[in-house]
Protein backbone atom coordinates (compact mmCIF):
# COMPACT_ATOMS: atom_id res chain seq x y z
CA UNK A 1 0.00 0.00 0.00
CA UNK A 2 1.51 3.33 -0.99
CA UNK A 3 1.68 6.48 1.08
CA UNK A 4 -0.70 8.05 -1.43
CA UNK A 5 -3.21 5.25 -0.90
CA UNK A 6 -2.90 5.67 2.86
CA UNK A 7 -3.61 9.40 2.48
CA UNK A 8 -6.68 8.62 0.34
CA UNK A 9 -7.87 6.14 2.95
CA UNK A 10 -7.43 8.82 5.60
CA UNK A 11 -9.59 11.21 3.56
CA UNK A 12 -12.28 8.56 3.14
CA UNK A 13 -12.32 7.84 6.86
CA UNK A 14 -12.50 11.53 7.66
CA UNK A 15 -15.45 11.97 5.28
CA UNK A 16 -17.15 8.90 6.73
CA UNK A 17 -16.73 10.33 10.22
CA UNK A 18 -18.40 13.59 9.16
CA UNK A 19 -21.31 11.77 7.51
CA UNK A 20 -21.79 9.48 10.49
CA UNK A 21 -21.80 12.38 12.91
CA UNK A 22 -24.46 14.09 10.79
CA UNK A 23 -26.54 10.91 10.64
CA UNK A 24 -26.18 10.33 14.39
CA UNK A 25 -28.06 13.53 15.15
CA UNK A 26 -30.89 12.64 12.75
CA UNK A 27 -31.76 9.11 13.84
CA UNK A 28 -33.58 8.00 16.99
CA UNK A 29 -31.66 6.63 19.96
CA UNK A 30 -29.95 4.28 20.57
CA UNK A 31 -28.89 4.18 16.91
CA UNK A 32 -27.64 7.72 17.19
CA UNK A 33 -25.17 6.58 19.84
CA UNK A 34 -24.06 3.68 17.65
CA UNK A 35 -23.49 6.01 14.72
CA UNK A 36 -21.58 8.44 16.99
CA UNK A 37 -19.35 5.59 18.10
CA UNK A 38 -18.67 4.63 14.49
CA UNK A 39 -17.98 8.28 13.66
CA UNK A 40 -15.48 8.52 16.51
CA UNK A 41 -13.79 5.34 15.30
CA UNK A 42 -13.61 6.63 11.76
CA UNK A 43 -12.17 9.91 13.03
CA UNK A 44 -9.51 7.98 14.93
CA UNK A 45 -8.65 6.07 11.78
CA UNK A 46 -8.42 9.30 9.78
CA UNK A 47 -6.02 10.73 12.36
CA UNK A 48 -3.88 7.61 12.22
CA UNK A 49 -3.80 7.78 8.44
CA UNK A 50 -2.84 11.45 8.49
CA UNK A 51 -0.13 11.28 11.12
CA UNK A 52 1.11 7.74 11.48
CA UNK A 53 1.53 6.22 8.02
CA UNK A 54 4.32 8.30 6.50
CA UNK A 55 7.10 5.74 6.06
CA UNK A 56 9.80 8.38 5.57
CA UNK A 57 9.23 10.61 8.58
CA UNK A 58 11.93 13.09 9.48
CA UNK A 59 15.50 12.40 8.41
CA UNK A 60 18.27 14.39 10.09
CA UNK A 61 20.62 16.27 7.76
CA UNK A 62 24.30 15.38 8.13
CA UNK A 63 26.31 18.50 8.91
CA UNK A 64 29.50 19.58 7.16
CA UNK A 65 32.83 19.42 8.99
CA UNK A 66 34.31 22.31 6.99
CA UNK A 67 32.95 25.30 8.93
CA UNK A 68 34.18 23.85 12.21
CA UNK A 69 37.62 23.09 10.78
CA UNK A 70 37.91 26.58 9.27
CA UNK A 71 37.01 28.16 12.59
CA UNK A 72 39.59 25.95 14.31
CA UNK A 73 42.21 26.99 11.74
CA UNK A 74 41.52 30.61 12.61
CA UNK A 75 41.99 29.94 16.31
CA UNK A 76 45.16 27.96 15.60
CA UNK A 77 46.58 30.85 13.58
CA UNK A 78 45.86 33.21 16.50
CA UNK A 79 47.43 30.74 18.91
CA UNK A 80 50.54 30.46 16.76
CA UNK A 81 50.87 34.23 16.57
CA UNK A 82 50.51 34.53 20.33
CA UNK A 83 53.14 31.84 20.92
CA UNK A 84 55.53 33.47 18.47
CA UNK A 85 55.20 36.80 20.31
CA UNK A 86 55.27 35.41 23.86
CA UNK A 87 58.45 35.84 25.85
CA UNK A 88 60.68 32.76 25.63
Amino acid at each position, binding site marked *: MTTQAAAIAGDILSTAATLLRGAASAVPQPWGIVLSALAAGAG*LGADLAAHGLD*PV*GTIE*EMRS*LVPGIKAADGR*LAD*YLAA*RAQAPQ
Partner: protein
Amino acid sequence: MIRHPRRLARVRRAWLWAHLAVALAALALDACASGPVRAQAAAANTAALAFNRALPVVVAEYEREGRAAIDAACCDAAAMRTALATHQTRWQPVVLGWELARIAHDDWRAALERCRDQPAEVCMPGVERTALTFVDSVVRARCAVRVIGRADLDPLPDPPACGDVPTDGGTQ
Protein backbone atom coordinates in the same frame (compact mmCIF):
# COMPACT_ATOMS: atom_id res chain seq x y z
CA MET B 1 -31.46 7.93 27.23
CA ILE B 2 -30.88 4.18 27.17
CA ARG B 3 -32.99 2.44 29.74
CA HIS B 4 -32.53 -1.19 28.84
CA PRO B 5 -29.33 -3.00 29.89
CA ARG B 6 -29.38 -5.18 26.77
CA ARG B 7 -29.45 -2.16 24.50
CA LEU B 8 -26.66 -0.55 26.52
CA ALA B 9 -24.57 -3.68 26.08
CA ARG B 10 -25.24 -3.65 22.33
CA VAL B 11 -24.22 -0.02 22.07
CA ARG B 12 -21.01 -0.67 23.99
CA ARG B 13 -20.22 -3.63 21.75
CA ALA B 14 -20.87 -1.50 18.67
CA TRP B 15 -18.52 1.19 20.03
CA LEU B 16 -15.78 -1.36 20.72
CA TRP B 17 -16.17 -3.10 17.35
CA ALA B 18 -16.10 0.23 15.51
CA HIS B 19 -12.87 1.27 17.21
CA LEU B 20 -11.34 -2.17 16.75
CA ALA B 21 -12.25 -2.25 13.05
CA VAL B 22 -10.78 1.17 12.42
CA ALA B 23 -7.65 0.42 14.43
CA LEU B 24 -7.11 -2.83 12.53
CA ALA B 25 -7.65 -1.06 9.22
CA ALA B 26 -5.10 1.60 10.16
CA LEU B 27 -2.60 -1.05 11.21
CA ALA B 28 -3.12 -2.91 7.93
CA LEU B 29 -2.52 0.29 5.98
CA ASP B 30 0.60 0.94 8.02
CA ALA B 31 1.92 -2.56 7.34
CA CYS B 32 1.39 -2.09 3.62
CA ALA B 33 2.98 1.37 3.61
CA SER B 34 6.63 0.42 2.96
CA GLY B 35 8.44 -1.35 5.80
CA PRO B 36 11.71 -1.25 3.80
CA VAL B 37 11.34 2.50 3.23
CA ARG B 38 10.73 3.04 6.92
CA ALA B 39 13.81 0.97 7.79
CA GLN B 40 15.99 2.90 5.36
CA ALA B 41 14.67 6.23 6.62
CA ALA B 42 15.38 5.23 10.21
CA ALA B 43 18.90 4.14 9.26
CA ALA B 44 19.57 7.41 7.41
CA ASN B 45 18.31 9.41 10.36
CA THR B 46 20.40 7.43 12.85
CA ALA B 47 23.54 7.72 10.72
CA ALA B 48 23.20 11.50 10.49
CA LEU B 49 22.58 11.79 14.22
CA ALA B 50 25.71 9.73 14.93
CA PHE B 51 27.91 11.84 12.68
CA ASN B 52 26.46 15.12 13.94
CA ARG B 53 27.08 14.04 17.50
CA ALA B 54 30.70 13.25 16.63
CA LEU B 55 31.28 16.50 14.71
CA PRO B 56 32.15 18.84 17.62
CA VAL B 57 34.43 16.17 19.08
CA VAL B 58 36.31 15.85 15.79
CA VAL B 59 36.73 19.62 15.53
CA ALA B 60 37.91 19.87 19.14
CA GLU B 61 40.45 17.09 18.64
CA TYR B 62 41.69 18.71 15.40
CA GLU B 63 42.30 21.94 17.28
CA ARG B 64 43.89 20.20 20.26
CA GLU B 65 46.36 18.35 18.03
CA GLY B 66 47.08 21.57 16.17
CA ARG B 67 47.96 23.36 19.38
CA ALA B 68 50.14 20.43 20.44
CA ALA B 69 51.98 20.58 17.10
CA ILE B 70 52.56 24.34 17.55
CA ASP B 71 53.75 23.83 21.13
CA ALA B 72 56.13 21.06 20.04
CA ALA B 73 57.74 23.43 17.51
CA CYS B 74 57.76 26.43 19.79
CA CYS B 75 58.95 29.03 19.57
CA ASP B 76 60.45 29.80 16.18
CA ALA B 77 57.64 31.25 14.05
CA ALA B 78 58.70 29.47 10.86
CA ALA B 79 58.99 26.12 12.62
CA MET B 80 55.59 26.58 14.22
CA ARG B 81 54.01 27.49 10.87
CA THR B 82 55.54 24.38 9.28
CA ALA B 83 54.27 22.20 12.13
CA LEU B 84 50.77 23.65 11.79
CA ALA B 85 50.77 23.14 8.01
CA THR B 86 51.91 19.54 8.46
CA HIS B 87 49.10 19.00 10.95
CA GLN B 88 46.51 20.47 8.56
CA THR B 89 47.76 18.33 5.66
CA ARG B 90 47.64 15.23 7.82
CA TRP B 91 43.97 15.84 8.62
CA GLN B 92 42.88 16.67 5.04
CA PRO B 93 41.80 13.07 4.20
CA VAL B 94 39.65 13.07 7.34
CA VAL B 95 37.88 16.29 6.32
CA LEU B 96 37.53 15.10 2.72
CA GLY B 97 36.19 11.72 3.85
CA TRP B 98 33.61 13.39 6.03
CA GLU B 99 32.45 15.70 3.22
CA LEU B 100 32.12 12.83 0.75
CA ALA B 101 30.03 10.93 3.31
CA ARG B 102 27.86 14.01 3.81
CA ILE B 103 27.25 14.38 0.06
CA ALA B 104 26.36 10.67 -0.17
CA HIS B 105 24.00 11.05 2.79
CA ASP B 106 22.29 14.01 1.07
CA ASP B 107 21.72 11.81 -2.00
CA TRP B 108 20.31 9.05 0.21
CA ARG B 109 17.95 11.51 1.92
CA ALA B 110 16.82 12.86 -1.46
CA ALA B 111 16.06 9.33 -2.68
CA LEU B 112 14.03 8.66 0.48
CA GLU B 113 12.13 11.94 0.09
CA ARG B 114 10.93 10.66 -3.28
CA CYS B 115 9.30 7.76 -1.43
CA ARG B 116 6.76 10.20 0.03
CA ASP B 117 5.13 10.49 -3.38
CA GLN B 118 6.10 7.22 -5.05
CA PRO B 119 5.26 3.62 -4.25
CA ALA B 120 8.04 1.69 -2.56
CA GLU B 121 8.62 -0.55 -5.56
CA VAL B 122 9.39 2.56 -7.65
CA CYS B 123 11.54 4.51 -5.20
CA MET B 124 13.38 1.68 -3.43
CA PRO B 125 15.98 0.90 -6.15
CA GLY B 126 17.22 4.49 -5.94
CA VAL B 127 17.16 4.36 -2.15
CA GLU B 128 19.18 1.15 -2.07
CA ARG B 129 21.72 2.45 -4.55
CA THR B 130 22.29 5.70 -2.66
CA ALA B 131 22.40 3.82 0.65
CA LEU B 132 25.20 1.59 -0.62
CA THR B 133 27.12 4.63 -1.85
CA PHE B 134 26.77 6.19 1.59
CA VAL B 135 27.98 3.02 3.29
CA ASP B 136 31.09 2.97 1.05
CA SER B 137 31.82 6.62 1.81
CA VAL B 138 31.41 6.02 5.54
CA VAL B 139 33.91 3.16 5.43
CA ARG B 140 36.43 5.46 3.72
CA ALA B 141 35.81 8.24 6.25
CA ARG B 142 36.22 5.86 9.15
CA CYS B 143 39.40 4.44 7.67
CA ALA B 144 40.74 7.99 7.23
CA VAL B 145 40.50 8.73 10.97
CA ARG B 146 42.08 5.39 11.77
CA VAL B 147 44.99 6.02 9.37
CA ILE B 148 45.97 9.10 11.42
CA GLY B 149 45.78 7.02 14.59
CA ARG B 150 42.45 8.38 15.83
CA ALA B 151 40.17 5.34 16.00
CA ASP B 152 38.57 7.06 18.96
CA LEU B 153 37.02 9.55 16.54
CA ASP B 154 35.24 6.84 14.55
CA PRO B 155 31.52 7.59 15.13
CA LEU B 156 30.53 3.93 14.76
CA PRO B 157 31.64 1.16 17.09
CA ASP B 158 32.61 -1.82 14.88
CA PRO B 159 36.01 -1.61 13.08
CA PRO B 160 35.61 -1.10 9.29
CA ALA B 161 37.33 -3.16 6.60
CA CYS B 162 40.06 -0.78 5.43
CA GLY B 163 41.81 -3.16 3.05
CA ASP B 164 45.61 -2.94 2.95
CA VAL B 165 45.72 0.62 4.30
CA PRO B 166 47.53 0.65 7.67
CA THR B 167 45.27 2.02 10.38
CA ASP B 168 47.67 2.06 13.29
CA GLY B 169 48.36 5.78 13.04
CA GLY B 170 51.61 5.62 11.04
CA THR B 171 54.17 8.28 11.80
CA GLN B 172 53.94 12.04 11.49
